[in-house]
């Protein structure tokens, strides 16, 4: 039974006694997960504040002394980069990946706990380096989260001295951290599953995290390549990306480099990156929908294929971000085609979520509200993606607020909906307490309606031609006055949404301190993570003996069974069927 030996290795489980060993230098995947999650949420809050500052400028131009063109660009850049990399990627994979993988596949810890611990500390280091750029001379870089050369490292862009260098360094450190964590996630899923946990019995959450991790391992190298080459260009004066430039009548030392090359590298990473965020979200939302609709997920196998196919295709669509870079029309045609093809498996997933709800026994709990909210926001963002995927439609819309609206619906709001669904859903497991429902509902409606109020009007602004990343619009004649009043309204909505997040933070703090103990498995979930001997799970997760898995993770409302769910580790003999109900095929 060699695989049990791997899953059950007591040998590499540490049993630290001291506080520091237990909570600081911990090798326990649950502690590491919480470290990852709290760090990510902390930087995420900084990025949220930055976005409000941006909105203040856009809604009320020239009213605030502390926002000038430079700081505006710095806010935009840091907001984007933090949200995409240091919040979403870290929270979904480092946080939820770490917490859920060992529990959902039934193992005691990640296969390389020490590497896992290192992964967190490298991540923290990358965050510190990133935040240090706020205090560096010249401040953080203002090159936009895409960091396009040549402007990213030219005089005139904010943070050109140290900001950009710290940014690139921080990214490189993050990639090292991600690789260490990622090797763990992939190997644990492939090698450390408990007895009976076949690949096709894994919850979709695991499929999503697993595929996203593989995407990350193969896409982050592209970012590392561009970061290293750009570091050489700024620090050593090489000309990898830098063309010959005459600045104020003086030729610069660079010549002959190719800025377009950077764009290719960046988006060869950047597009898979959006699915590194989306796939775990897809997986988690599938599980939340299924549990709270008391129905198995519709089309499980199709869902698995879709995840894998989307993952594969996401490597051959990158140039749809570069339609305006002057590419060969055949090239654009190719990428438009692949881009539209990727929408097919994506649409299948949306249909399957809706079909999971159809005739389900829907419980409108807080996680379920967020999950249903996600279906709306994701569909909207996906539809605007279809517009942008076509070259001719993209040309006028590129670099306008339409793109901002698209990617915020699909990559801003949607993953946030999933993260909140996941937090409300798994909070009782992680902390033993259940977040307050009333506050949760207030939080949901404020966030859901509020984000629509922010992003729907942005589509319209985009159609009017309002460009993104502009500090001020001035008196552009092609823009009607409504643009300005709309910008004001969007800013108000943004502030309101930000305030609604305080309800959530208060809810978490209040629940942790004063909240009543939650019952075990309050949602009646069938997957393994809810069935540990202790809740919250203890070191080593499973007590003396690892569970054995007898079924897939979605046995909800099984015909003939008295209980409306059958946990994965319950053998057929122990299921309480009504007389004449389903019989085990073995009897």
């Amino acid at each position, binding site marked *: *039974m*060699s*695989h049990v030996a*791997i899953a059950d290795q007591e040998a590499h489980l540490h049993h630290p006694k001291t506080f520091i060993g237990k909570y600081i230098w911990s090798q326990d995947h649950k502690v590491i997960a919480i470290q990852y999650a709290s760090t990510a949420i902390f930087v995420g809050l900084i990025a949220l504040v930055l976005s409000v500052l941006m909105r203040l400028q856009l809604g009320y131009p020239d009213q605030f002394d502390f926002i000038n063109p430079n700081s505006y660009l710095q806010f935009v850049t840091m907001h984007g980069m933090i949200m995409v990399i240091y919040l979403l990627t870290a929270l979904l994979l480092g946080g939820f990946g770490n917490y859920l993988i060992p529990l959902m596949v039934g193992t005691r810890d990640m*296969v*390389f706990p020490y590497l896992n611990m290192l992964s967190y500390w490298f991540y923290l280091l990358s965050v510190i380096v990133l935040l240090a750029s706020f205090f560096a001379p010249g401040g953080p870089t203002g090159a936009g989260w895409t960091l396009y050369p040549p402007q990213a490292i030219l005089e005139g862009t904010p943070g050109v001295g140290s900001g950009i260098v710290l940014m690139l360094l921080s990214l490189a450190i993050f990639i090292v951290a991600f*690789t260490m964590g*990622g*090797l763990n996630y*992939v*190997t*644990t899923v*492939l*090698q450390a*599953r408990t007895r*009976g*946990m*076949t*690949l*096709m*019995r894994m919850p979709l959450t695991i499929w999503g995290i697993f595929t996203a991790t593989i995407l990350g*391992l*193969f896409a*982050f*190298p*592209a970012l590392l*390549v561009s970061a*290293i*080459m750009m570091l*050489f260009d700024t620090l*050593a*004066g*090489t*000309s*990898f990306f830098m063309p010959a430039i005459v600045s104020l009548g003086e030729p610069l030392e660079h*010549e*002959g*480099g*190719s800025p377009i*090359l950077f764009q290719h*590298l960046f988006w*060869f990473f950047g597009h898979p990156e959006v699915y590194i965020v989306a796939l775990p979200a897809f997986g988690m939302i599938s599980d939340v929908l299924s549990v709270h609709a008391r129905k198995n997920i519709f089309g*499980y*196998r199709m869902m*698995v*294929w879709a995840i*894998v196919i989307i993952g594969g295709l996401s490597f051959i669509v990158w140039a749809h971000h570069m339609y305006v870079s002057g590419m060969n029309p055949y090239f654009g045609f190719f990428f438009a085609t692949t881009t539209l093809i990727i929408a097919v498996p994506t649409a299948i997933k949306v249909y399957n979520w809706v079909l999971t709800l159809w005739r389900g026994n829907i419980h409108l709990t807080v996680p379920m509200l967020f999950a249903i909210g996600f279906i709306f926001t994701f569909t909207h963002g996906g539809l605007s993606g279809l517009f942008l995927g076509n070259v001719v439609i993209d040309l006028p819309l590129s670099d306008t607020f339409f793109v901002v609206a698209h990617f915020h619906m699909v990559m801003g709001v949607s993953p946030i909906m999933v993260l909140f669904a996941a937090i409300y859903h798994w909070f009782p497991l992680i902390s033993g307490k259940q977040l307050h429902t009333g506050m949760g509902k207030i939080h949901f409606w404020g966030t859901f309606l509020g984000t629509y109020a922010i992003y729907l009007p942005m589509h319209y602004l985009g159609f009017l031609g309002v460009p993104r990343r502009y500090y001020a619009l001035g008196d552009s004649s092609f823009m009607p006055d409504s643009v300005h009043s709309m910008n004001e309204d969007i800013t108000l909505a943004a502030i309101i949404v930000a305030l609604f997040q305080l309800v959530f933070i208060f809810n978490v703090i209040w629940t942790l301190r004063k909240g009543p103990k939650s019952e075990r498995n309050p949602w009646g979930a069938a997957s393994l993570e809810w069935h540990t001997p202790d809740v919250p799970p203890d070191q080593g997760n499973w007590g003396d003996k690892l569970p*054995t*898995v*007898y*079924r*897939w993770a*979605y*046995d909800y409302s*099984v015909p003939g069974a008295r209980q409306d769910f059958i946990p994965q580790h319950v*053998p*057929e003999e122990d299921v309480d069927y009504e007389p004449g109900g*389903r019989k085990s*095929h*073995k009897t």
Partner: protein
Amino acid sequence: MSWTQIFTDKPWLPEAAGEVPDTDTGKAPGQIALRMLLGAITILFLLFFVTFIERSQFQDFHALAGEPWQPFTDSMRLWVNTGVLLLASLCLHWAVRTSQKQQAILLLLGGGFFAALFVVLQVSVWQFLYNLGYGLAENPANSYFYMLTGVHATHIIGGLFALLLVGRKYLAGADTGVALRACATYWHYLFVLWLVLFFMLTRTPETYAIIAAFCGLG
């Protein structure tokens, strides 16, 4: 475990419940992780190469070999370094195959020593280039040479740290079979990667033109 399950399994059928299929892969986790890591490093260098080949077709690119006065028209130094790295690789190759602990320890030390020596020798090549006036930013060909050999050396240094950790455990008597074999595989990989680098960085302009045409980047 097999990937065909994705196409054939029907976990939702009542008949599927209750079974406990065998999920053993017969592989050690270390092997899987190492393969993923090598895959990622391969992609890293592939992307470097793609940019390199594209850049090599620009007017201002002066290859480091071809004419007699260019530094790697005679690449003896690099061949010496290749030999040293080969020794490192061979040491680890034998270290995981010998059954005598004494011998294994010596071979492990040898593997580490030659790898470290290789890094030092690479630095001396940098000095050699620099003294000839081939500075880092003078020409993209030079930039690529310094950068790619540097990234490669960084991977060796990372490997040395891993070897140190595993070696310590081995001395302490822990079961390090899989980990040592992983180190050996990593060493062989870095050796082969070096051969590819060596080849790529020391071609003549004509060869680059052929490679570029072959990759559709000409």
